[in-house]
């Protein structure tokens, strides 16, 4: 953990102190721009901003989560450019990563909140149970209380992962813990949702980099996600899209279409309704991503993806058991139809019974 007691330096100073040349700094800025999905022409502006950027204090809160988001971010190995960003934030509290435990850890959190009041960033992973505060507590403090207390003095909140952003798996039907997302609780602070299960690591760091670079939050979509990463759907950026347009689909995992790398729509790919950067950023240092490895997108960065129908059902298929419902409907229809039919037959029989023979003497109307 960085020492928050010393006067925070700017990023430029810090790098120079470590012997990084200006050329190295430019390389860093180029990589940062690329990571933030900003055009290369922005590099000079980024360089200027990062030069003066100061280390913000970050408090990371983990609630009902699986630590997958932290895993995604830190991964297993050594320094990357993302870690360089991390070196230049002051991660003052993260109960998975920090050395301190128990009261010491909580004291660090309170100290960071106190010293950086109004300026620190709160990163949250995991959803918050509302049904019973006892479902998830840290140091005896319920998730809800800790969130409210910690966010009160924050500049902004970054909800990392689909649990924090939208409720995620804990929120999946029947949602036994009454799990909710951060944005359902925090209404008076800017909340950025970095969804995904887990989110792409560079997207997490990209948002932090943006805060670091521009001192504010990036432009968000309707779901509170940064548009630069979530502005386009998987489908729109998918290299297999031409196969979709041509009507060439894989139908099983081992058919010709699968081998030829055709579109996975029919195998339940949720790419058309999923907004994320996987198709361009890819995973594991650009090695591959789900569709490239032959499996459809699960739609993990969208709300309620867990309840959005089977992973292997095409998007066009409604969720209910259609065949069964049609059967039930037909039975009900036969019952109601038979009743209606009887009603009609009675009406007609009644009319026939009331028939008065028409003779030529009653062709004129009653006057």
């Amino acid at each position: 953990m960085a020492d928050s007691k010393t006067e925070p330096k700017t990023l430029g100073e810090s790098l120079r102190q470590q012997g990084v040349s200006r050329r190295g700094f430019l390389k860093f800025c180029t990589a940062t721009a690329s990571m933030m999905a900003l055009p290369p022409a922005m590099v000079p502006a980024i360089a200027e901003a990062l030069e003066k950027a100061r280390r913000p204090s970050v408090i990371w809160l983990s609630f009902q989560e699986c630590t997958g988001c932290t895993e995604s971010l830190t991964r297993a190995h050594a320094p990357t450019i993302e870690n360089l960003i991390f070196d230049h934030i002051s991660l003052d509290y993260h109960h998975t990563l920090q050395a301190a435990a128990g009261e010491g850890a909580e004291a660090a959190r309170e100290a960071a909140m106190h010293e950086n009041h109004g300026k620190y960033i709160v990163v949250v992973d995991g959803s918050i149970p509302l049904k019973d505060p006892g479902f998830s507590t840290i140091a005896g403090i319920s998730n809800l209380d800790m969130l409210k207390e910690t966010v009160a003095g924050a500049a902004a909140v970054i909800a990392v992962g689909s649990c924090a952003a939208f409720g995620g798996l804990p929120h999946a039907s029947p949602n036994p813990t009454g799990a909710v997302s951060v944005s359902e609780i925090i209404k008076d602070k800017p909340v950025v949702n970095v969804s995904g299960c887990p989110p792409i690591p560079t997207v997490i760091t990209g948002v932090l980099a943006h805060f670091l670079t521009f001192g504010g939050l990036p432009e968000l979509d309707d779901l509170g996600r940064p548009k630069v990463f979530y502005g386009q759907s998987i489908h729109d950026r998918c290299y297999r899209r031409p196969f979709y347009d041509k009507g060439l689909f894989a139908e099983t995992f081992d058919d010709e279409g699968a081998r030829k790398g055709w579109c996975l729509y029919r195998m339940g790919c949720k790419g058309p309704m999923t907004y994320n950067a996987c198709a361009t950023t890819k995973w594991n240092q650009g090695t591959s991503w789900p569709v490239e490895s032959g499996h459809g997108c699960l739609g993990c960065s969208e709300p309620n993806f867990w309840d959005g129908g089977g992973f292997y059902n095409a998007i066009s298929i409604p969720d209910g058991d259609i065949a069964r419902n049609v059967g039930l409907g037909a039975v009900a229809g036969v019952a109601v139809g038979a009743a209606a039919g009887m009603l009609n037959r009675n009406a007609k029989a009644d009319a026939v019974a009331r028939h008065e023979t028409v003779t030529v003497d009653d062709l004129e109307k009653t006057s």
Partner: protein
Amino acid sequence: MSSPIDFLLWVKGPAFDIALAVFVIGIVVRLLEIVLLGRKQDLAEPKGEEFGPGLRTIVTRTLPEAGSFKQSPFTVIGGYIWHIGFLICLLFFVPHIELLHSVLGIKWPGLSNHIVDAVAVVTMATLVAMLIDRITHSVKRFLSGPEDYLVWLAAFLPIVTGYLAYHRVLVPYPLVLGIHILSIEFLMILFPFTKLMHTFTFPLARWYNGAMAGRRGVQS
């Protein structure tokens, strides 16, 4: 939370179940209402068969009578184009095949999306032309009531929204896909209560027509 995804899930979930229930129950009720009314036994000595000519009329009425075609080529051709176009979009767009496969357990080859896309454009244009014709043609305008225009809308919306969804024109996609499915649910719910029912009753009507004529020795 009410995000486009929630809307889509609602449309694909409870809303679809409701629409499907109304659709299935409604159609079965309507068909039973018709069939159970029955018809009197015909005591006149028949000159021909009922069954065969009835079946034949079901088929032959698919082709227009020569005079009608000459008098109203637009109604006939327009009717063909949009019905066939609608069916192509419904039955040969791969996502639809996937849906039907999940219900029927059978599937068939789909068409390239570019072809379906072109068909959808032609279908929409034809429907618009047919609406204009309905508004301007003296007989059609005279006959048409609110229901006719409602039914037109119900047939038009799924194609337009499907077109928008395919082209991902309204963002976000879950919203436009949800609207597309909703428009189909609208169509399904209207079905039993409107003349959309002709989809299911026309074989009955044609059969009765053909059978009654067939009995008199005429192929209608």
